[in-house]
């Protein structure tokens, strides 16, 4: 369905500006050019100060004593011996911080230290600060904790079958945290009209972010009663909120959070963490600065990474592969706490519809609590798992129908400027171009299915997959009516422009995005702009570096602030030169008359002229995403100002004897809207290929199920960088990258996201390539060598040439999802509400 487009490009965008979203590349001075990042020099000089690089006089070091059992009640904690150790300055237990917190308002289920119950191996119980880190460690060993062990819950089947003991006293029932059941259109009719249907079961094992920087926090409660927390966090605003909640009655405005540059995040630093809050409390207790730097093992305990997800997908298609019905179940192993899990659950059902038209769609998602480290958002947040399932299933469909998987996808693309079955509003849509690029580049038409046995005895194959991702979540994680991003500009007589923004650079280059955009609008050198970010005392709120939101949201806010500054400067210059403001051009560090270019002044003179006329110059910009079309409960997860698109072809070479395979080459095309910086965008795409490849081939957050003193215990199989396999230099294939630019009217200069999308097609493309090479299906991530081998053995034995979860009725947990919310699709005349939804109280916006 084509929308009657309201024609606005962004809530604040001006349509007369020369930097409209569809501006010609040659009309832009800085945007799109490979200029350096604003922090490039410090990063290559070792001068970027990460959280653990900070220290303060009289600083104490804090360590956490963590649970050694997976599920237990805390009977007794005895810290007397620890307290007596010379050098120990402070000890905290759960009793000192009784207020629970959590990233989502609906799941405030964590404590800075567990007060009465531990829920996984690694849950923190006691915090000790000492003059030296080693003393704190030793003191932790002197603490005695007595546990009364409880039965452990190890996975989705077990959680569904065992409502008791409950991990939490909230949630749907038993150990079911969330159940979602959304039905769009008429599934029965969709399946009735299908020429072909399939039902497949898939499993995506959990994996983790593995940022190279381990989390660290420095907290300082000063003598004026103000608290400052420097931390490796992607979300300083949410950390600020959590601190204010737990440290009550300390007023929120006495708390300052400074997010240090993150040494990689990938979603792993977007929850407020127990160690951050404990360090703050410890500083309040001791009156001294307190630092905690986690070990690598502890980073695995923090986790909140990719959920293990079991999926059952029934799909109906016409004979050209058009999806008439999709009935999708997902079962998420959430680990011990809520984290972002509610959103993750919805995300396993949200974005299937934005790549190919889906006429009728039924999504059922269940998230369970288990006794493992909590899961949450990792690059792609909840969407890589269903994307894997869908793209592999489509490959099977194409095979069943004798269609070319690439052509079948091209024939069924979701249209641009349309609403999907689940009321997501698609704007620009460059997936078709992406597919065409990788198909042409890889020689898909001539080579797919024909590579076969190579002279070296190995088998080659090609696999294709596509994906889409959000350019920022359309809704904030807590309900409010305020902007998602704010930028303030200060213009100084020296010509300096300082940009203040709460956004956090996690390596993706968000600080630089501010510089490039403001530099373009004001016609000044982006590297001359001073960027002050992620400091809750100084910078206006930006919700954080998650959901690929920063380029679009911060970018639009920066553009608005810059446009306003430009107007003020233009008025000053116009008066001084007696030229109409509308005739002024801002370029090359000058402001001049377009009709008489020599008539003008330098940027600095222009700022002075404006300040003389208007007084001190400061402007603000803010951004709120367009309202969502979805109005049913749960419709808040999925809407975004725009969607990026990616297509990948992967080539594999498989040893048929062992199942060992390599990936020699990848072709990746990404529709980015517009690349604000060519080199930096390339880096995001290549990094996504890398991380996706790691997930596809080897990465897994797996647990050992052991018996400990008569009870089962779940311990990480692999809490180290050596054992948690991730790709090294030699694993990285040759990558041919295509940057597809289809400017989106909601993006600054047309930009969409690039940090997460290109990861998504990697996993299914690898699985599909294995099939092309050796004719076996691995319906499970990671597609590790032994699984390929097992599938090859099954094939040889004349069994189904597949490795994967049980496809039968026992394969998925028996869960009563209750009645679905029924929503008419746009083409059924739906208005985005559920016709059987009980009336909801409208919450007042704060």
């Amino acid at each position, binding site marked *: 369905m084509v929308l009657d487009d309201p024609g606005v490009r962004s809530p604040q965008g001006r349509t007369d500006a020369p930097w409209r979203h569809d501006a010609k590349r040659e009309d832009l001075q800085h945007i799109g050019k*490979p200029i350096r990042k604003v*922090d490039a*020099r410090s*990063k290559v000089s070792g001068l970027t100060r990460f959280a653990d690089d900070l220290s303060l006089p009289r600083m104490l070091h804090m360590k956490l004593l963590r649970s050694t059992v997976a599920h237990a009640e805390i009977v007794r904690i005895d810290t007397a011996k620890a307290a007596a150790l010379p050098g120990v300055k402070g000890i905290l237990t759960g009793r000192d911080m009784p207020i629970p917190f959590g990233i989502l308002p609906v799941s405030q289920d964590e404590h800075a230290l567990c007060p009465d119950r531990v829920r996984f191996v690694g849950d923190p119980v006691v915090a000790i600060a000492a003059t030296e880190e080693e003393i704190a460690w030793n003191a932790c060993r002197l603490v005695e904790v007595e546990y009364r062990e409880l039965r452990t819950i190890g996975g989705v089947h077990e959680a569904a079958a065992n409502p008791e003991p409950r991990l939490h006293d909230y949630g749907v029932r038993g150990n079911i945290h969330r159940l979602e059941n959304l039905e769009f259109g008429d599934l029965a009719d969709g399946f009735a009209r299908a020429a072909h249907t399939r039902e497949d079961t898939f499993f995506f094992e959990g994996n983790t972010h593995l940022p190279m920087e381990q989390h660290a926090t420095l907290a300082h409660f000063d003598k004026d009663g103000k608290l400052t927390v420097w931390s490796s966090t992607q979300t300083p605003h949410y950390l600020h909120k959590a601190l204010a909640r737990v440290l009550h009655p300390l007023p929120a405005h006495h708390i300052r959070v400074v997010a240090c540059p993150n040494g*990689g995040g990938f979603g792993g630093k977007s929850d407020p963490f127990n160690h951050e809050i404990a360090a703050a409390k410890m500083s309040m207790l001791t009156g001294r600065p307190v630092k905690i730097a986690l070990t690598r093992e502890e980073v695995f305990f923090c986790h909140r990474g990719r959920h293990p997800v079991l999926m059952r997908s029934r799909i109906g298609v016409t004979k050209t592969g058009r999806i008439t019905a999709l009935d999708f179940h997902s079962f998420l192993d959430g680990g011990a706490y809520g984290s972002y899990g509610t959103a993750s659950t919805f995300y396993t059902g949200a974005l299937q519809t934005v790549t190919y038209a889906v006429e009728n769609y039924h999504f059922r998602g269940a998230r369970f609590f288990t006794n493992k480290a909590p899961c949450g958002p990792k690059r792609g947040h909840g969407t890589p798992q269903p994307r894997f399932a869908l793209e592999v299933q489509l490959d099977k469909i194409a095979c069943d129908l004798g269609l070319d998987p690439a052509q079948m996808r091209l024939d069924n693309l979701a249209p641009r400027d349309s609403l999907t079955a689940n009321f997501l509003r698609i704007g620009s849509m460059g997936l078709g171009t992406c597919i065409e690029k990788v198909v042409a580049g890889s020689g898909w038409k001539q080579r797919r299915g024909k590579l076969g046995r190579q002279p070296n005895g190995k088998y080659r194959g090609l696999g294709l997959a596509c994906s889409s991702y959000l350019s920022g979540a359309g809704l904030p994680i807590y309900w409010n009516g305020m902007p998602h991003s704010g930028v303030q500009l200060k213009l100084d007589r020296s010509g300096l422009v300082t940009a203040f923004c709460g956004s956090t650079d996690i*390596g993706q280059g968000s600080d630089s995005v501010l510089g490039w955009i403001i530099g373009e609008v004001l016609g000044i050198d982006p590297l001359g702009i001073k960027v002050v970010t992620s400091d809750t005392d100084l910078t206006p709120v930006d919700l954080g570096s998650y959901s690929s939101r920063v380029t679009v949201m911060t970018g639009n806010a920066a553009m608005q602030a810059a446009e306003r500054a430009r107007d003020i400067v233009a008025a000053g210059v116009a008066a001084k030169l007696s030229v109409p403001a509308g005739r002024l051009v801002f370029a090359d560090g000058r402001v001049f008359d377009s009709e008489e270019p020599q008539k003008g002044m330098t940027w600095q003179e222009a700022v002075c002229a404006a300040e003389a006329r208007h007084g001190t110059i400061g402007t603000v910009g803010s951004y709120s995403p367009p309202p969502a079309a979805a109005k049913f409960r749960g419709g808040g997860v999925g809407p975004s100002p725009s969607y990026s698109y990616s297509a990948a072809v992967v080539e594999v070479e498989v040893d048929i004897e062992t199942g060992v395979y390599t990936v020699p080459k990848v072709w990746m095309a990404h529709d980015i809207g517009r690349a604000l910086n060519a080199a930096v965008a*390339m880096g995001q795409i290549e990094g996504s290929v890398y991380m996706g490849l790691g997930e596809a081939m080897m990465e897994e957050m797996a647990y050992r199920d052991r018996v400990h003193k008569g009870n089962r215990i779940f311990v990480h199989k692999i809490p*180290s960088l*050596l054992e948690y396999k991730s790709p090294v230099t030699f694993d990285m294939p040759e990558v041919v990258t295509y940057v597809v630019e289809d400017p989106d009217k909601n993006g600054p200069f047309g930009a969409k996201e690039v940090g997460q999308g290109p990861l998504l097609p990697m996993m299914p493309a690898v699985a599909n390539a294995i099939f092309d090479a050796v004719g076996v299906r691995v319906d499970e991530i990671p597609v590790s060598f032994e699984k390929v081998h097992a599938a090859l053995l099954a094939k040889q034995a004349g069994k189904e040439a597949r490795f994967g979860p049980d496809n039968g009725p026992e394969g998925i947990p028996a869960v009563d999802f209750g009645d679905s919310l029924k929503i008419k699709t746009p083409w059924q005349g739906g208005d985005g509400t559920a016709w059987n939804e009980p009336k909801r109280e409208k919450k007042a916006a704060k």
Partner: protein
Amino acid sequence: MTEPGKVLATFSVNGEPHEVAFAPHKTLLEVLREELNLTGTKHGCELGECGACTVQIGGTPVLSCLVLAVDAVGKEIRTVEGLANGPELSPLQHAFADLGAAQCGYCTPGVLMAADALLRDNQRPTRDEIKECLAGNLCRCTGYIKIFEAVELAAARCRGEQAEPRRESIHGS
């Protein structure tokens, strides 16, 4: 007087002597970061698994988390802080900045120290030689490609060529 249980020793770091008192079980990484405040050198594991802590001793890249500080006394230690020549970045650093080969920048100091040693011995490293040299340095951000390209670009510039990044590595194919 040295504190009991500590040793007093002089390190030569980036060409300057530093006198430090430290417990003898401290690693070179700990002494650099915590005693000398040279925080440019990073850590990702402190177990020899990630390469973030790479420094050079006598020109050879080593993992400073696996070297006892006492064993580095009297040797010439070089860290990322010693790469630039005064205010001027080294060609390797320039190439990393030009190509965006440092994303979060956390692995970068270790990668630079390993690659710098390679370029000193080998003016024309092949892609495989670069991969080999950096096989012990994990990077989670870049997918290594911009790092390989930056090392190649720096090598070309060190050979006196007027090299610029290739078009495809900046704008794609």
